[in-house]
């Protein structure tokens, strides 16, 4: 069964081989058959490469550290009170919004000529023209970090919540408080280490993503030079063969950057855990931190607030007639942009078709594996955890690295631009998420229901479709929602494997946002956001209607 999963994820390995070989000059398809350092030398001579690599490290690691810090702060502040329930309701939809939409919204909001500046000018600032100071996007990568945080903090909060549900949080805190520790100290010393242990994998995925993001970086990162992934992405466009070989070397370099960052992270873990132990044994009560927590949590929620305001700015620009600085609101409103957006309908169709096909494929694979393998509680069994590593590969290997190799191979086999290839590649990225949701759900699904049905003479087919699936309705519905969200957001895979033949609203949103038409970019971004939202609402409504009479299902839906 692991073999089946392995087979499904083989494109990652094949894609990696497809960049490693050319990067040392071996490329039979182009008649390059000998070992050579030329591609490597050529890529290393790219102007600004060292700055690009440093920028990648800086933005990727900083964004991950901050996302971890703030998500834990928010968890510690809200986990035991009402806020959490509201937060979960809000964050659920927010993690479904594609990175590129968030980036576009922040651009509309925060640039010197953005909505925020228009709201406060000229009255408060005295500016009748946008100020010259470049704070967004800035030359240091801070804007990219902010954009990443708006996506990663909610993600880590949700992952953390899921873990918290399995921990005796309240008891641990009570024990700590009774010893005179502050709540912050209890969280810091008792609970967070436990949570951290469980979220290392999603955290690694966040780190890898931050180090190799393309779409968000195209919009928010500095450009001279851009981060390494964007540098590679832009060099792919060059048209001579030697450059293609040297881009392969760049893709390998990106992989090396990610591996190095993960090693650095692990070293950081060791250092921090030593400090931590020392600190914990010192007996600090950290009562002062209790007062700091809410303030920090508010700061931690700020990127999401900005993202949501950004969505408002997008909406505003999509119905704005002419709107010149420093007017706080458009001079006129028009539906013309929406009327002319009918040509996006095919793109929307492509996006939806792709998202649902890929999600369906991933669901079938995961359910088949879950159903046909014995129940396992993998936290008891480290080895099985390693068995699942191939499954997480697409999230742990930088997209640009293996997809470029895959593109070369697919083009060679006439597969690029075909729906089959695209659906497969999309399913590849959806699979790990669905696995993470469904595997525990299948494992914890009470087998006694099944046994009762069996004793009543129902066959396996009936039991699966009429007993098990309804029992798993909630995780299945969430899987569909997450699968669609992941697929809609994919930028690099769609562009490289779609070969320009299959266009989606996401590709459109990014190209329009770099092309300086706010209204059109806004509409594409809204459509991008709309698909997962509609799925989310549909899922929630359907679950409510279908299961409102089932008391045991209520907690799940809360």
């Amino acid at each position: 069964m692991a073999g089946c999963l392995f087979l499904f994820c083989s494109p990652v390995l094949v894609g990696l081989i497809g960049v490693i070989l050319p990067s040392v000059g071996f490329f039979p398809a182009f008649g390059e058959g000998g070992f050579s350092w030329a591609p490597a030398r050529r890529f290393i001579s790219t102007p600004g490469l060292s700055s690009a690599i440093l920028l990648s490290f800086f933005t990727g690691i900083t964004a991950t550290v901050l996302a971890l810090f703030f998500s834990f702060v928010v968890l510690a502040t809200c986990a035991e009170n009402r806020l959490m329930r509201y937060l979960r309701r809000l964050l659920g939809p927010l993690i479904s919004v594609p990175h590129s939409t968030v980036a576009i919204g922040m651009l509309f909001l925060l640039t010197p000529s953005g909505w925020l500046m228009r709201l406060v000018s000229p009255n408060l600032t005295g500016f009748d023209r946008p100020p010259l100071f470049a704070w967004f996007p800035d030359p240091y990568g801070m804007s990219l970090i902010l954009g990443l945080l708006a996506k990663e903090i909610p993600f880590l909060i949700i992952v953390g919540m899921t873990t918290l549900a399995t921990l005796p949080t309240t008891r641990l805190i009570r024990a700590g408080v009774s010893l005179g520790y502050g709540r912050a100290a209890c969280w810091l010393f008792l609970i967070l280490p436990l949570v951290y242990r469980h979220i290392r994998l999603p955290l690694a995925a966040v780190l890898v993503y931050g180090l190799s993001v393309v779409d968000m970086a195209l919009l928010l990162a500095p450009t001279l030079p851009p981060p390494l992934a964007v540098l590679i992405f832009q060099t792919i466009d060059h048209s001579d063969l030697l450059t293609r070989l040297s881009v392969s070397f760049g893709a390998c370099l990106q992989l090396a950057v990610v591996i190095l960052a993960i090693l650095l992270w692990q070293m950081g873990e060791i250092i921090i855990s030593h400090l931590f132990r020392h600190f914990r044994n010192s007996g600090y009560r950290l009562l002062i931190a209790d007062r700091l927590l809410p303030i920090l949590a508010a700061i931690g929620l700020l990127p999401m607030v900005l993202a949501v305001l950004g969505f408002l700015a997008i909406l505003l620009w999509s119905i704005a007639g002419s709107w010149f600085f420093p007017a706080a609101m458009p001079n006129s409103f028009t539906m013309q942009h929406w009327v002319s957006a009918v040509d996006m309908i095919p793109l929307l169709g492509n996006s939806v078709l792709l998202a649902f096909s890929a999600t369906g494929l991933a669901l079938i694979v995961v359910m088949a594996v879950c159903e046909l393998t014995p129940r396992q509680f993998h936290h008891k069994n480290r080895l099985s955890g390693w068995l699942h590593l191939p499954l997480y590969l697409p999230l742990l290997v930088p997209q640009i690295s293996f997809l470029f190799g895959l593109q070369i191979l697919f083009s060679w086999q006439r597969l690029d631009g075909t729906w089959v290839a695209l659906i497969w590649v999309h399913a590849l990225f959806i699979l790990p998420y669905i696995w993470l949701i469904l595997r525990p759900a299948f494992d914890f699904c009470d087998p006694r229901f099944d046994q009762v049905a069996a004793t009543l003479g129902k066959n396996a087919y009936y039991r699966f479709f009429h007993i098990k699936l309804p029992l798993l309705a909630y995780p299945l519905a969430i899987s569909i929602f997450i699968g669609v969200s992941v697929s809609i957001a994919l930028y690099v895979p769609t562009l490289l494997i779609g070969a320009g033949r299959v266009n989606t609203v996401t590709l459109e949103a990014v190209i329009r946002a770099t092309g300086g038409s706010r209204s059109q970019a806004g509409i594409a971004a809204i459509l991008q956001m709309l698909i997962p939202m509609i799925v989310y609402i549909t899922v929630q409504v359907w679950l409510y209607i279908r299961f409102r009479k089932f008391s045991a299902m209520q907690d799940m839906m809360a």
Partner: protein
Amino acid sequence: MRLIISLAGLFILLVSTTIPVLGEDFTTTIRAAKGQTVYFNAWGGDDKINAYIAWAGQQVKSRYDITLKHVKLADTATAVSRILAEKAAGRVNDGTIDIIWINGANFAVMKRSGLLQPMPWVETLPSWKFTDAESLPAIKYDFAEPTEGKESPWGRAQLVFAYDTARLLTPPRSAQELLAYIRANPGRFTFPNPTDFVGMSFLKQILLELTVDKTPLYAPVDTANFESVTAPLWDWLDNAVPHLWRSGSTYPANYTALRQLLGDGEIDIALSFNPADASAAIEKGELPATVSTYIHDVGTLANVHFLAIPFNASAPQAARVVADFMLSPEAQIRKSDPRIWGDPMVLSPNKLSTADMTALAAVPRGVATLSESDLANTLAEPHPSWVSRLEEAWKSRYASGF
């Protein structure tokens, strides 16, 4: 018998290249094109252009039953590199690109690498008779590179500057004046990233203006002393960059992003390769009505852009029909309307029918567009080989970080 005929046809072809491809006349081409799908690879960063291509798609659908799919590129080089990869992989007749919007350096690369249809086809198009290579020789020479009938002219372009008359009374009309303006108004001027076509064109414009002896620029770059020829440009940039928008730490991705900066009031002067672009933007409410255009006194870069068919197009007949439609008076006149696109036509007005002339006369010029006589001052494009060298040199000087 048919074999003999086609062999004879081939022989004739080898002898003369002005005869229609494989002896087939255009009605045969139209018949063969019926039901085919054409993947039209064109830069997709401008809504007006995209809408125009969509209109053309509707027309060829209803007239010829051809499905036109616009593959929107962020950079035309992407498509060129794809065709190159397909050639390397031995895809000789089922390529993913049927027709590509191209000119200059990309055309030179395609021609050199054998990525174009091997046979000349342009002069077999029925619409070719409306063109006049005498009065507009550029339709046969793309950046001085002979097109050899392997790319069909689509439109004309000239670099024009746009400025807001409400903010700026007398715009700078030469490279030197522009530099003085930049230094006096820090942060209020920029140009697209030179990795972009228009950004590179701006560099070429400045270089042409500052170079005393232009002859080396019209020969292959390898034959020139690159350093000494380009020294004035780097000197100009060294003086300008610290005072550019965002202190030259970043550049807009393309001219539409630049146009937006002008509309937002972040910069004072924008540039575009389309003389009617500002008028169209005013029409759409993207630029204030006070915007106007001008060119430098010595003239500005002008060129023609083309449609080419790759060697391995999967629907070459339909691609030719599309190219012919794009060259037809109806499509060309519509294209020149600033409310539609505002891209000047490549046809000769005095070769048009009376009805078409009337239609052409009815096309508004656009409030901010210069007259033909104001635009008469043009500079020819340097040899295409200069582009990549200039880009490399620019990157190593201004884009390598610390």
